């Protein structure tokens, strides 16, 4: 069956450091992978999409890598800030339909001053 695995342990880092979150998947042949942010009591908010032919994508302090051989994506937040504290979700399209996303359980990030 299709699985998306994210580190279930919360990640605690100091302000200013780089946070790195991991997403591993099995039984997907994804054309793309997405990362979302979710705050308590809120719906997920889209951050970045990376396609299978892209090794790396950047947006401001965010960087995503995508290795289809390892079946893994890494999500980096550089110069982290307390406002970055949230749960970060990795999402894959079940059938490359363009809409049927399944999400990992997410990794909670806490950035302390």
């Amino acid at each position, binding site marked *: 069956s299709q699985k998306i695995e994210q580190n279930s342990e919360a990640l605690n880092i100091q302000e200013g450091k780089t946070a790195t979150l991991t997403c591993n998947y099995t039984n997907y042949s994804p054309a793309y992978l997405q990362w979302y942010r979710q705050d308590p*009591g809120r719906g997920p908010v889209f951050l970045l999409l990376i396609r299978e032919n892209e090794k790396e994508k950047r947006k401001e302090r965010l960087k995503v890598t995508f290795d289809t051989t390892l079946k893994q994506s890494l999500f980096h937040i550089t110069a982290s800030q307390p406002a970055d504290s949230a749960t970060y979700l990795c999402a894959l399209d*079940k059938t490359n339909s363009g*809409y049927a*996303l*399944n*999400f990992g359980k997410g990794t909670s990030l806490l950035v302390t001053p």
Partner: protein
Amino acid sequence: GAGVSQSPSNKVTEKGKDVELRCDPISGHTALYWYRQSLGQGLEFLIYFQGNSAPDKSGLPSDRFSAERTGGSVSTLTIQRTQQEDSAVYLCASSLQGADTQYFGPGTRLTVL
């Protein structure tokens, strides 16, 4: 502009009762999605509406679940004869077109006693 809204925000019901959850998408968005987030699980795709096309119901977990989208706007997710395992947060999202960035509502937390 207004985002995706969902009602009610919380719903407590007794096992065996029917419930209706409502989603108001962003005005002008033609695509609408329902997801379920069970405790300790990632978001799970349930159903997708695009314009006047037949919905993709492939994610609905049983025939107790159904959804409608009237007039290409508001959507209702109905769960008949609720079971305790239906307890979850039900999230709705909309996008301008199918396969575009999805914008999520805050969700409805359903508790089945």
